């Protein structure tokens, strides 16, 4: 038998308390509530609700399998990984794991900003379960992979975010475990390094025959890396199969989570022109729907012109919080595709949705499609900019400030 992971009937329950919005219990509240109950005698029990983050999940994974776990946010993907990596315990079910397991649920867990790169390699290695000798043996390899030779003795608080991620991933990638669990960590870092990491992960699984469990929202990466997929929805494993099938099912069910929208209508019906597809791309023309605010975002629109007209206009609407954040119209001629480029450091932080209109300007509305795609903009840790998580508003451009 080559099974390395067997999961039967896994379930994880959380209790959500509705009374009070406190994230944690405070002793003073416990005492105060107790006192209130004593006095009032009419026991107002706080409303508590059970929430199953996972339920009835069963699967088994063979040695060498590369499993991509996909699903919407909050579907329970990370919960599965957390239970498998023994960070949290299941509420029901039984799991059998054969072999050493190591997990990378977050980049650089345990990194201390005050410590140097060298010190952090040792510490992080230990955190991930490596022995001192193992780390020493692989030290040079790790440093070379991370490309941080020059900065080994610099505290990591002075590292750029890219260097930080590279170092953290490098340590994890050199673990000698039979099973590697990776959660969405490759979303950070530049695309070149992402490729390198993926190459490394591919090596790890293909050449060394290790088993990989991988969570990502980036379908291109999942498709490249994995041969098998789990589709998770609302805590249930709804589909387990070849990665291609899983991705297409997912994209069919969740068009807004993919980076490409195709017009499913019969596109030849209109007289003048119609939109065929809209895709969101990064600067390397890869489909993508989550960006850092330091990245360029490209919106590519493919259309079909049946009968050229001088007033053919396509208009993009960018929505945030359900309102139009900004819009941009463009007149088109008889070319078949146009790209709209959103420069880095323009958009605010958060989720944007795209509506698109096709019209003959001031003459006739051809067609319009709402909420066809969505993308997320996240804050990048850039040294010259303040890193604040809750930036509000539609835009977050770099402004010049002067002392007067």
């Amino acid at each position, binding site marked *: 038998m080559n*099974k390395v992971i067997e999961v039967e009937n896994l379930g994880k329950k959380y209790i959500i308390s509705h009374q009070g919005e406190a994230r944690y219990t405070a002793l003073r509240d416990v005492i105060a509530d107790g006192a209130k109950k004593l006095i009032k005698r009419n026991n107002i029990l706080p409303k508590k609700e059970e929430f199953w983050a996972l339920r009835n999940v069963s699967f088994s994974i063979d040695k060498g399998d590369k499993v991509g776990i996909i699903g919407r946010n909050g579907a329970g993907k990370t919960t599965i990984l957390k239970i498998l990596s023994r960070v949290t315990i299941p509420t029901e079910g*039984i799991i059998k794991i*054969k072999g050493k397991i190591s997990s990378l649920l977050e980049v650089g*867990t345990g990194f201390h900003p*005050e*410590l140097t790169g060298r010190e952090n390699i040792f510490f992080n290695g230990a*955190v991930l379960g490596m022995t001192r000798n193992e780390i020493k043996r692989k030290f040079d390899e790790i440093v070379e992979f991370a490309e941080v030779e020059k900065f080994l003795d610099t505290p990591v608080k002075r590292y750029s975010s890219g260097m930080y991620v590279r170092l953290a991933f490098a340590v994890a990638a050199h673990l000698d475990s039979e099973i590697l669990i990776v959660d969405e960590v490759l979303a950070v870092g530049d695309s070149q390094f992402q490729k390198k990491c993926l190459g490394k992960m591919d090596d790890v699984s293909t050449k060394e025959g290790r088993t990989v469990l991988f969570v990502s929202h980036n379908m291109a990466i999942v498709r490249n890396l994995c041969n098998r997929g789990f589709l998770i929805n609302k805590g249930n494993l709804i589909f387990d199969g070849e990665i291609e099938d899983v991705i297409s099912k997912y994209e069919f069910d969740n068009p807004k989570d993919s980076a490409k929208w195709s017009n499913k209508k019969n596109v030849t019906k209109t007289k003048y022109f119609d939109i065929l597809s809209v895709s969101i791309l990064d600067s390397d023309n890869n489909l993508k729907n989550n960006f850092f605010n330091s990245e360029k975002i490209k919106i590519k629109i493919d259309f079909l012109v049946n009968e050229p007209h001088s007033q053919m206009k396509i208009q993009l609407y960018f929505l945030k919080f359900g309102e139009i954040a900004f819009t941009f119209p463009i007149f088109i001629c008889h070319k078949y595709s146009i790209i709209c480029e959103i420069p880095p450091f323009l958009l605010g932080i958060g989720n944007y949705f795209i509506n698109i209109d096709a019209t003959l300007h001031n003459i006739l509305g051809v067609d319009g499609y709402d909420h066809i795609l969505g993308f997320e903009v996240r804050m990048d840790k850039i040294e010259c900019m303040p890193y604040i998580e809750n930036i509000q508003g539609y835009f977050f451009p770099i402004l010049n400030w002067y002392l007067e």
Partner: protein
Amino acid sequence: MQDNNIIVIEAGKTEKHYWLDLWRYRELFYFLSWREILVRYKQTVIGIAWSVIRPVLTMIVFTIVFGRLAKLPSGDVPYPILVSIAILPWQFFSVSLAEASNSLIANSSMIGKIYFPRIIMPSSSIIVAFIDFLISFVILGILMAWYKFVPSWKIVFVPLFLLLAIILSLGAGFLFSAANVKYRDFRYVVPFIIQFGLYISPVGFSSDIIPERFRFLYSINPMVGVIDGFRWSIIGKGIDFYMSGFLLSIALIFLIFFTGLFYFRKTEQTFADKI
């Protein structure tokens, strides 16, 4: 799947290999302590000086307040030495308790993302306190040389009393760190205990000034047994060993240790969900 190497996680069951895991993760224990020490001496500008200034100032203040102003007796021993000896175990206890009770919260990202026997975390705080202990010991040595004070041969028993202090610190550390995860305002309780404890423990004075009939009651504070033990073994002459009180302290130390351990083990599986 018949290998020995199989990890079985079953809902509602505690892990079978907990203590074995603890052994497997001993490297992490070492690295955690090492990191704590590195960070401690890198982050604060005065670094090691802090570990020197603290016990020295406490010693000076206590000598002036209790020795000079209150004119409490110290037997044949110079007052600063009487105080410095007590500062050794007290400082060890207070530093490790403060560090340990905060350790889980301070490392919440690790708890939420990585598996390791959680008990490593508060335990490794002991090492930081131990470094401070060694520094204070050196200060005591210098002080004894200054006063030309020769310690008793019973000083060989110091490790035994230190062990008691370690067991007490671990127990209290387990208890408070776990409670801190559940009740976040617990962290206000710990500094209070430490501050209050300093005055009710025989740090600035000798236990001999406690009236005989209250002596047993006084030993309910487990640090009394430890501090008296330190004084007995280092000063030697003229220090009576109050056995019944000491036994009570030992009993309470083990009670606290096992209570802490039990509570920690009971709650640690849910740390990742709560933190």
